[in-house]
């Protein structure tokens, strides 16, 4: 191992092309954040507003939460990036395991009650 791992750097090794890329990336993140705020407000409005039927609200806010999940995972946690193959497979396995667990628990505890 190099012994200079604890040394701070005077400057960044990024060239102009890389700097432009990272600035563009940062703008994308801020836009993704604006989207997240937007759909969050939409979800709260759907529940807070009067006259919206409950049969519509529940699937609608669950859909919005799912969109938010994708935005967070793929933009903020960078899963869309090229070198994220293993993180993707781990997170997807986690979600694939999670879905039947939730369904099974709802069935066992809430619907059929053992």
């Amino acid at each position, binding site marked *: 191992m190099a012994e200079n*791992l604890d040394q701070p*750097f005077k400057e960044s090794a990024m060239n102009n092309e890389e700097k432009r890329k990272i600035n563009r990336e940062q703008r994308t993140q801020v836009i993704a954040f604006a989207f997240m705020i937007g759909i969050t407000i939409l979800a*709260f409005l759907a529940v807070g507003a009067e006259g919206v039927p409950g049969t519509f609200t529940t699937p609608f806010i669950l859909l919005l939460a799912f969109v938010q999940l994708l935005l967070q995972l793929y933009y903020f946690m960078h899963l869309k990036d090229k070198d994220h193959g293993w993180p993707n497979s781990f997170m997807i396995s986690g979600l694939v395991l999670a879905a039947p667990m939730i369904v099974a628990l709802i069935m066992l505890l809430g619907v059929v009650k053992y």
Partner: protein
Amino acid sequence: MADSVDVNKGLPANPEKATLDGKNKFLGMFVFLAGETTMFATFFGTYLGLRSGTGSGPEAADLFQLPLVFIMTMLLLTSSLTSVLATFAMKKNQFAKLKLWMWITFLLGATFLGLEIYEFVEYYEHGLGYTTSAFASSFYTLVGLHGAHVLFGLAWILLLLLRNRKAGITLTNAPKFYAFSLYWHFIDLVWVFIFTVVYLMGIGG
């Protein structure tokens, strides 16, 4: 692997993954988060199964208030953005900016946690104790588990900031800040489902 990094020109473009140690932290964090996903799934499933079991205690619609949950959600969502901005500052070798964004993240998270404690005290005063009903236990366990994660994250970033307050961005601490940022997004992600499944569905669904 670590020896092949060319550090003569300055900070590498992706300092969090420049060394083997950094790559391991990065991958290990995702293994951990995938495990956390399944753990939270069991708590969500339990809550959804038990949420109508209120017994003689108060119900969700009697307790939850939209404005408070909305403020908490905005605080946590914004703290997710500030921690993303901190990692961008890290990649650009702007240490002062990294610290500033991380401190803002810490403050937003701490305010969130304060509101959550206030909320729990309020519910307790309205007659929702931990053992009042199946709904109460599963609610406090799920939301409390998330709160414990927030508390852990706050302690984590506080220690990182204090220990590295003069260090500058190095190949040792960049992976640590990055791992924290991943963890913090995950906390935010779990909250998205808590405010949807617990609060919004409790009030309107």
